[in-house]
């Protein structure tokens, strides 16, 4: 890997396009922007950026970010390369099929772009903890799953620091999120704790198409109804290979194709094709190279703005569509006041380690701060959820009753743990951050 290299003539010329932008003032710059060589230096040598997903958007993002001056890039992807990726995921070749997307992509960029250092992680995002995510200045997502988006959203929000209820802006890691579907795409900039997060705007994601079960079973009209029937009802019943459906197994798809064709013929429904069967079973979202290029580029531009303050970032959501001409629309998505993910400012609460759980519950019910009625309490330890006590559900109450007489220490709680407290007096589950005092103090 190259050193800072700023002094070398070679790099000086190579980055002259970026230097003009960063070393000259301009009328549309952010008010705090200071034109100086320091900015490019920061970008190249200090700024650390994380790309999540090395697929259609991820490949483009790595390239775009590398040319916008980012050199310390990490990329996470748990997937391996498939043939159907090659029409757009341009860092992969036929010979790479079956290999890790993250590793092949990182290797390609590092070879092509001198001085760029991409670190691949062939893993799930859930394999990493706070200390991993905390090292980045910016996170850019090129994902196709809402679950993964929400997870990373929750993770980055959990890194926020509040001092006396006031957000410490130094703890903010901006998230830039891109998404595509066919010729449509969207880009958003999230400043967790300040602007709308993924969970604030969950209804912006198109709902998955589901058909009523009774239609599928009794009044099918569309080829999709016939395919869903085979998938939801016939497969579990006949289970030809005694395994769940694998959308990548051509035998499975052929079986479903055959059975849904039979069903369609029975009802005189036209239009069952092999391609449609694959699409319905695997929930395939159409994708082209051009939309990925556009959306990733817009994300990279926003990352560059955030890292350099050279202009104001997108505030905060842009939709793109090039079905008819080229259409874009930028607007401010609003925060949801009762957002499950980002409205939660963890409240600190102090207890002695030898305080019994029932005393803690009594405090929640009696103290003027809470005045709860029937709090149910869970916590998260070692990556698992635990129910400490819940009075409202008989079977849980019975099994957790024993915890009431135990001390917080005996329950294995430690300083900094979060208690999730649900109570009818509050619209959402309240998050309490436990400060555990030594019993002698």
């Amino acid at each position: 890997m190259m050193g800072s290299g700023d002094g070398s003539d070679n790099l000086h010329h190579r980055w002259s396009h970026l230097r003009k932008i960063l070393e000259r003032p301009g009328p549309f710059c952010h008010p705090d922007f200071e034109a100086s060589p320091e900015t490019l230096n920061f970008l190249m040598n200090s700024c650390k950026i994380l790309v999540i997903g090395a697929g259609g958007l991820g490949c483009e993002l790595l390239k775009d970010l590398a040319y916008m001056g980012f050199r310390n890039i990490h990329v996470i992807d748990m997937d391996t390369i498939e043939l159907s990726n090659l029409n757009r995921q341009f860092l992969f070749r036929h010979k790479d099929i079956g290999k890790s997307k993250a590793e092949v992509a990182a290797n390609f960029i590092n070879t092509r772009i001198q001085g760029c250092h991409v670190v691949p992680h062939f893993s799930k995002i859930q394999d990493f903890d706070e200390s991993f995510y905390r090292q980045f200045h910016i996170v850019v997502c090129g994902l196709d799953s809402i679950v993964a988006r929400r997870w990373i959203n929750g993770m980055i929000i959990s890194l926020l620091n509040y001092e006396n209820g006031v957000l410490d802006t130094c703890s903010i890691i901006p998230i830039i999120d891109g998404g595509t579907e066919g010729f449509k795409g969207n880009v958003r900039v999230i400043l967790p704790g300040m602007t709308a997060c993924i969970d604030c705007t969950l209804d912006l994601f198109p709902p998955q198409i589901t058909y009523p079960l009774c239609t599928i079973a009794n009044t099918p009209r569309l080829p999709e109804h016939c395919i869903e029937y085979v998938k939801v009802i016939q497969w579990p019943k006949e289970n030809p290979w005694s395994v769940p459906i694998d959308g990548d197994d051509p035998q499975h798809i052929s079986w479903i194709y055959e059975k849904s064709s039979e069903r369609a013929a029975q009802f005189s429904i036209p239009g069952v094709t092999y391609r449609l069967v694959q699409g319905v079973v695997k929930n395939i979202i159409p994708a082209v190279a051009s939309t990925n290029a556009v959306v990733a580029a817009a994300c990279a531009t926003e990352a560059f703005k955030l890292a350099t303050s050279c202009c104001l970032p997108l505030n905060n959501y842009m939709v793109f569509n090039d079905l008819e001409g080229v259409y874009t629309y930028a607007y401010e998505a609003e925060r949801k006041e009762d957002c499950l993910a980002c409205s939660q400012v963890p409240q600190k609460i102090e207890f002695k380690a030898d305080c019994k759980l029932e005393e803690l519950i009594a405090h929640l019910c009696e103290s003027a701060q809470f005045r709860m009625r029937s709090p149910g309490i869970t916590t998260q330890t070692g990556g698992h959820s635990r129910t400490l006590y819940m009075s409202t559900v008989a079977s849980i109450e019975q099994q957790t009753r024993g915890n009431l007489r135990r001390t917080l220490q005996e329950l294995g709680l430690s300083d900094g743990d979060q208690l999730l407290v649900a109570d009818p007096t509050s619209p959402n589950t309240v998050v309490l951050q436990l400060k555990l005092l030594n019993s002698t103090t």
Partner: protein
Amino acid sequence: MSSPAPKSPEQSEKNKKYDRQLRLWGDHGQAALESAHVCLINANGLGTEILKSLILPGIGAFTIVDGEKVTEEDIGCNFFLDHDSVGKSRAQATIQLLLELNPDVRGDYVDESVEQVLENNPDFFNNFSVVISTQISERVIIRLSKKLWELEIPFIACQSYGFIGYARIQVQEHTVIETHPDNEVPDLRLDKPFPSLKELIDSIDISKMELKDHAHVPYVVILYKCLQQWQQENEGQIPKTYREKESLRKLIRAEILNNDDGIPHDEENFEEAIKAVNTLAPTNIPSHVREILDDESCINLTSKSKPFWIMAKALREFVENEGAGALPLRGTLPDMTADTERYIHLQQVYHSQAAKDAEVMFRRVQQLLREINQSPDSITEKDVKLFCKHTSTMHLVRGSCIADDYDNKIFAQKLAPHLEDPESALVYAVLLRGVDRFRIAHGTYPGEYDDQVEPDIVKLKSCVSKLLNEWSCGPLAKDDYVHEICRYGGGELHSISAFVGGCIAQETIKFITSQYKPIHNTFIYDGITSNTASFTL
């Protein structure tokens, strides 16, 4: 629905590779793409980004025209160069790395400037499907645009300049059958029912039905019957105003069955009928289709007429005769609450009427082909069927020649109305023209050298003022734009090029596949505010 299920459903390698895009533009779109040949003039960062998004989906072939040698600056914004490329021919260096993207694609290059090519080989451009240029000078663009206008080859001239992206699209005539509209109103003909539809619906008696059947009558039947009733009371009109529509909705609501307590049941099909009142419109010829039918190219066919116009002429005749003022039936039925049997029956009625209309259209097309001495094979039955399915949403573009933008009188007329808005992004098009002038006068980009930024601002401002004066437009509202453009110094930001590159690749695919509506005709991307805008010049 159109093609029968293949005997052996197992897909070919190629189908698997292109699966995600075949779901968008279909096998016929892909075939068009694979037989296309595009030409790129100047393989800078923007140019190679455009090619990338054409090569990946499998364009047939491409040719690069570029006389430049690779510089250090090129390495900093062009993915299809590496650190060993410096000093080599840019055309040669980029083509090598571009071809690695897809073994299905052929590519070649000419390492001469476009001026040289125009000079030495005037027929060079004759056979391209689309020609794309990046960063070419005023003098060349005028010559090239005239040439391509004569050749009737779509031409896209684009630029990536600092945070600004720009494209001007020139096409003499472009016709689109499949525009893939987002929300298509179903073609149901409830106000002008064809005989088999009338017969089917008249044979259904809703009033005698038990709840289960009643709740599974397709909404089309309900809407038709209630509309009939409404029309009897309203001189055969179609409800237009809110009040009229509301009174039709009331008629529908009255048909919902009540339970034993006199409370209406939840009948979703009736709810669907009530909703559909909103989109109920008289069956007629949309104005953009009327324009196509009345176009000179449609009325006067010649032996050189293109298939689109021959089919349009057949359509014109169909509308005047068999169609009795209506387009051929589209023949598709949206999904709706219904039992299988009734729905499928209704679907078949629509489908077979559409097939009949298409057959009439095909016979007319055959007749026209004979009349103008074209081969009867030049338009297939499949072509006509596709055409018939999309007549109401087809699209015609007549563009203008880029060279006209350099005719002050013509350009002033087109530009002035847009410049009245001081916030219009079109100001960047004006500034880029100013940059052209600057280069002619001074031989560099404004702000290219660090120590010349301040003096260049003054010079660029004077270039822009002169231009505006020539177009009889007032001065710019503020100097900010001039400052900003000088700040860029001709620099190319990769993420801006990648954005514009993706857009222009898709515009190119639109021309090649004749699907989707292209930009008409000027496009600006402002990366500072993350906005885009399109203008017709």
